[in-house]
């Protein structure tokens, strides 16, 4: 109650609306283009030795085997997600039976549903609150491209205008099998990820600073 009181002293309801509107307009203006999918590393030349590869494998195995999804279900694809989540299709087989209400404990966002511009800042905030490493599965036609609402005044034409997307699962809505396939694709992708430990070039590191330029 104290917080509410101090808030209402600073902002009235109208000026909060104006602030929100300005935030949405700014987001809309800044997200006209599409954010590229974070997959440059998939084709990168591998610069590691055997030991680090094994360590990478262990890290990636741990990461892909316990993907905890964050809550971001703005529309009807959430029904298919629920179906995939519970006993019949059973996401627990992939180590992801843990739905996290707090984005800080999650590392996968399954964006099941149409995103309106009014909701976009909140989804962006949830994504930003998730701890690294984090992945996004765009579930359904609306999440991939805006779907049938792509030309609407109120709908974001694809989540990749707001956040980087790793895997796209098409369908309206996609069947649970399709979502499972998307999750497995993401797991394969994570398996190929190499972590930021790079082997230092010992020869270069041992050289004195001045010699480097002349050589």
């Amino acid at each position, binding site marked *: 109650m104290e917080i509410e009181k101090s808030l209402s002293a600073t902002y009235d309801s109208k000026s909060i609306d104006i602030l929100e*509107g*300005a935030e949405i307009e700014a987001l809309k203006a800044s997200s006209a283009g599409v954010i590229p999918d974070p997959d440059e590393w998939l084709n990168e030349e591998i610069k590691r030795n055997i030991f680090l590869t094994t360590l990478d494998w262990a890290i990636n195995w741990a990461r892909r085997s316990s993907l905890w999804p964050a809550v971001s279900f703005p529309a009807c694809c959430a029904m298919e997600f629920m179906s995939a989540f519970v006993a019949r299709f059973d996401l627990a087989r992939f180590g992801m039976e843990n739905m996290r209400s707090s984005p800080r404990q999650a590392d996968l966002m399954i964006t099941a549903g149409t995103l309106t511009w009014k909701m976009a800042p909140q989804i962006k905030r949830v994504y930003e609150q998730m701890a690294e490493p984090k992945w996004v599965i765009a579930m359904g036609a609306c999440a991939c491209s805006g779907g049938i609402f792509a030309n609407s005044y109120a709908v974001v034409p694809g989540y990749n205008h707001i956040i980087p997307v790793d895997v796209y699962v098409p369908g309206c809505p996609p069947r649970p099998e399709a979502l499972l396939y998307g999750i497995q694709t993401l797991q394969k992708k994570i398996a190929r990820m190499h972590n930021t430990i790079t082997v230092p070039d010992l020869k270069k590191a041992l050289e004195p600073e001045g010699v480097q330029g002349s050589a």
Partner: protein
Amino acid sequence: MTVALSGIEVARKLAEHFTGAIVESSEKAIVISAEQLLPVMDYLKNNPEMAFSFLSDITSTDYFDYFEITYQLTSLEHNHKLTVKTRCYDRHKPVVPSVTGLWQGANFMEREIFDLMGIAFSGHPTLKRIFLWEGFEGHPLRKDYL
């Protein structure tokens, strides 16, 4: 099954109390002039014979020449319902009296119409956009939008 009252019969009863309030009446609906909307609605809600205690829905239609606002009233006591309409001819500054004083449930429904159709409701406690954000230009459900 909820009985739909005949608009003509209700209009006949209303004519005893209000002069010039009824613009049009048919079996399905009665059309009330915007000026007399509030007293007529008050009568429909509080008269024990009518007792329309529940406002099911408010919708609006754009006919180019005028806007029509439709109220769906239901009486839980008598299990009957009635459709009441009112019209607004000013396209640039359409104003209709708000019924939030009679039914609290009208609050969000009138805000929705204000947001998407651009009809202002005089006497509404917090008349601001509800679905779209502050700063959005235009009213998307109008026929001449885009």
